[in-house]
């Protein structure tokens, strides 16, 4: 089955800094989503992005499906951005989640 890797596993930033999170997947996929898991455990949709580039405020994402990776960019980070960021990918209906990147934004 599909394997999903994420890097870095942990990231500590000062407020205002920019960051790039990476997701690699082992096989061709037709689904890819980025989620933010907040401190209360909720999974918040960030992007549905099986290919191409999308932007939403300070966040943007790019997926290069032919090269089997996706990137999540966070600009001008805020303390509320802290949490775990998951990439999930799939070739059918269900998702395989990566292990996540734990982001801590310090004031």
């Amino acid at each position: 089955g599909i394997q999903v890797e994420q890097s870095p596993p942990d990231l500590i930033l000062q407020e205002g800094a920019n960051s790039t999170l990476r997701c690699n997947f082992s096989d061709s996929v037709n689904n890819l989503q980025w989620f933010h898991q907040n401190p209360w455990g909720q999974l918040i949709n960030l992007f549905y992005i099986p290919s191409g580039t999308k932007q939403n405020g300070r966040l943007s994402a790019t997926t290069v499906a032919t090269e089997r990776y996706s990137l999540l960019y966070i600009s001008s980070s805020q303390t509320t951005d802290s949490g775990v960021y998951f990439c999930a990918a799939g070739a059918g209906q269900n998702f395989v989640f990566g292990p996540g990147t734990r982001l801590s934004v310090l004031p």
Partner: protein
Amino acid sequence: EPEVTQTPSHQVTQMGQEVILRCVPISNHLYFYWYRQILGQKVEFLVSFYNNEISEKSEIFDDQFSVERPDGSNFTLKIRSTKLEDSAMYFCARETGTGVPYEQYFGPGTRLTVT
């Protein structure tokens, strides 16, 4: 506005007991999913459910688990005889239903603690 609600938010049960976790979609979607997340680990797919039938399930979804949509609205996950290792957060998800295939929205989760 929550897309999916789940009840209860937290359930504590003794090993060997049966538990039923509920998922209530806000609107009439056809595709539903259950995932689980053991504390500190990644989210794992359990089962997908379409048109009142299981369409796909993982190796985790063994005979101890079952799903149904008994009243055409609530979508339930039943664990027949809970084990300590069933302690996890259980998420229900549904497809967006806006014509974007496979985009999933997750409920807030039910934290199951087996003692």
